[in-house]
């Protein structure tokens, strides 16, 4: 097992190098540069050249890439032009906020998605199945940013149940309760679509398993239906549900970008959007590489979990 994990970790290195090359090239190729973004109306060629020199952007492309890469390997992601602070400080702080949001949404979509899928499958073509399928389709069809805006309008502006935006209140203590208060709407808005996808795939995975012989055997020997569904069938279905959860984790992370914009959540997605608009090259590159690394690690973890669940998957 340890050998398998090590092998997977080593295979992640070329992936990350590839990603660093791609994001570096994209940032180098898109029109506009940090100096133009900073200077705005005052971006004369002369002022731009002077500022580029100050920012170290007058070096050749290849030199810049290797300086960046070798610094990054040593843990130095550079300084953000626009925020005037170390990239890594900003990314870690913002990534923490995204993890809280995406993590909550991920738990919500896993728990409710699997539960809905199992209940649907156990009542195939029954009322519960039809009701759940209807709600699930609705959830999948609503764009999350629109849902977020509607939730703000109804639950924050009109009913005043929840704060409109932000992660923490401006005044008062920072307790877990006020965090949940701020987290509720964005996490739900983010989880809705993913919940629908998980529910649909869990349903078909369960239906597949429920048709198999060992389920009939379990029922025949008098195992209680609850136990058949939740213990025997779900456990077997999890092998095909877990990879879906892995994909949904990535989906929730990328979907967080819109939700963070709408709810002003101080997360890494909003940071990247701002950074791209400001042509804050190092922040974009550092942020993307960091997120990619986390995503790659998460996928390795999913594969490992799957092989633990199903010994037939070779390590």
């Amino acid at each position, binding site marked *: 097992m340890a050998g398998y994990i090590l092998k997977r970790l080593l295979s992640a290195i070329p992936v990350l190098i590839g990603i660093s090359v791609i994001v570096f090239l994209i940032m180098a190729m898109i*029109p*506009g540069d940090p100096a133009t973004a900073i200077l705005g109306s005052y971006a004369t060629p002369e002022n731009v050249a002077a*500022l580029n020199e100050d*920012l170290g952007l007058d070096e050749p492309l290849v030199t810049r890439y290797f300086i960046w890469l070798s610094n990054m390997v040593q843990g130095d992601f550079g300084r953000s032009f626009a925020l005037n602070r170390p990239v890594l400080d900003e990314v870690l702080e913002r990534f923490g906020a995204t993890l809280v949001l995406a993590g909550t949404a991920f738990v919500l979509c896993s728990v409710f998605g699997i539960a809905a899928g199992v*209940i649907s499958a156990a009542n195939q073509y029954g009322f519960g199945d039809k009701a759940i399928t209807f709600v699930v389709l609705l959830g999948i069809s609503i764009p999350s940013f629109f849902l977020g805006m509607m939730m703000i309008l109804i639950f924050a502006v009109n009913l005043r149940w929840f704060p409109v935006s932000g992660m923490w209140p401006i005044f008062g203590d920072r307790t877990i309760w006020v965090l949940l208060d701020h987290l509720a709407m964005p996490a739900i808005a983010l989880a809705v679509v993913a919940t629908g996808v998980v529910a649909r795939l869990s349903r078909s995975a369960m239906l597949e398993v429920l048709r198999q012989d060992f389920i009939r055997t379990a029922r025949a020997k008098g195992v209680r239906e609850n136990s058949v569904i939740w213990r025997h069938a779900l456990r077997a279905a999890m092998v095909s549900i877990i990879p879906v959860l892995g994909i949904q984790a990535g989906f929730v992370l990328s979907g967080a970008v819109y939700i963070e914009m709408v709810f*002003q959540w101080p997360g890494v997605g909003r940071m990247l959007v701002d950074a791209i608009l400001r042509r804050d090259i190092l922040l974009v590159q550092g942020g993307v590489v960091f997120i990619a690394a986390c995503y790659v690690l998460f996928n390795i973890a999913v594969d490992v979990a799957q092989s633990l669940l199903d010994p037939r998957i070779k390590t």
Partner: protein
Amino acid sequence: MSFLNLSRRAALALTAAAAVALGGLSPATAQTPPGVLVVGQIAEPQALDPHAVTAVNDFRILMNVYDGLVRYASGTLEVEPALATDWTISDDGTVYTFTLREGVSFHDGSPFNAEAVVFNFERMLNEDHPFHDTGPFPLSFFFSSVDSVEATGDMEVTFTLSEPYAPFLSNLAYPTGLIVSPAAVEQYGADFGRNPSGTGAFRFEEWRSNEAVVVVANPDYWDGAPALEAVVFRPITDANTRTAEMLAGGIDVMVEVPPVALGEFEGDAFTIHEQAGPHVWFLILNALEGPFADVRVRQAANYAVNREAIVNDVLEGTAEVAAGPTPPAFAWAYNDELEPYPYDPDRARELLAEAGMENPEITFYVTEGGSGMLDPIAMGTAIQADLEAVGFDVTIETYEWNTFLGRVNPGLEGEADMAEMAWMTNDPDTLPYLALRTAAWPDQGGFNSGYYSNPEVDALLEEARTATDQDRRAELYREMQVIVQEDAPWVFVANWVQNAVTNDRVEGFGLEPSFFLLLHDVAKN
């Protein structure tokens, strides 16, 4: 089936848990406390170092934390004493001597004196200064005419300019001229921008990244302690969310209200504030080649565009019709006798016929949005329709702001016939000097992307920049405006009326023509 019972039970339990967890937690959206003003900003500030930033959004905070040697008198764009109590200008316009205010301290306790002023300008302008590397200082060229700055007394500073430069005083009133604490720069180095210290009405307290910048009242402020106890600046980048926060009571002041959201704030609970500023939105016309090389076609475009409809319908009254290249906010330099081109499609058609071009084909660069650009896509579409109504054949090309600047600033030659543009400036010199002179064509480092050239205008602008007498400068600018309007190098479209909304707990709030946000006299119940 027993299973259904369980699922119902489970569903109930889950629903109850969710309701407890989400709904009954705390009385959401508590009112903001009295004496503490919460301002909804359009973005996270980049830094609170006035010499290092360029965004109006950051200036809104900076102007309350720092002072300059001079400032704009309330409601105008004319300078008055601030940290300098008075000054003299040599007859040739190159030596400025300032007498500094006694008894002022920076928020960190260090004294304000001539040495501090010299430190500020040396840091920006002198590459050998030990703290020059705490930059970059993108707008330091505002002071590029400064040859030397010396402490000629404990409380006297003398600036020597390489040539007479009339906008020098108003540049000192701009945020780039604000005075920072040398002791704080020495202590924090490149991190000064997150640990700012000035002499202003409010003292920096805390910067919670992406949440808030908090400043508290400076009780020892030389111009009297402010009425507020503290101000919280919250970055809320999404305009819809900002509007929702304002409606829900999460912020007390909202700046840059989108035109479509203004209707939400009619009624007694809110006050809408408006103030025209030194902004002009125009279309650059390519006078070098193509149809607009003919002055009659340029004038035809000016007659064809229905500016009234654009400012009233597209911009919902958040702008006024522009008559010429200089915004009326520069009251002292503005030519009141200038009438905007009237909306006259028939006259436009006549001019096109005279020029022998009934259906000129033009390429029109439009941007998606950008500093001061208002609602560029909707405005661009309206302009396209107006021009096509008189016979133009207009093709729009739309670009993201940075890409757009990268295409427009190097000049329109071989690329396009017309481009949107907007400028906000602090002196009537800046825009025409950088964008209308022959010596400001893009290949010479200027912003004259449409290649307008008129030796008379060049001479007027050169003289206005070096004249030290304000009345003489005003005369020159007024003359320039008449000529430029007639030559029509641009289609003069709109002057932005900046807006803000305050709730009914805020008193004494007003916007300034400088577009700065000054909170010294504001109170909140």
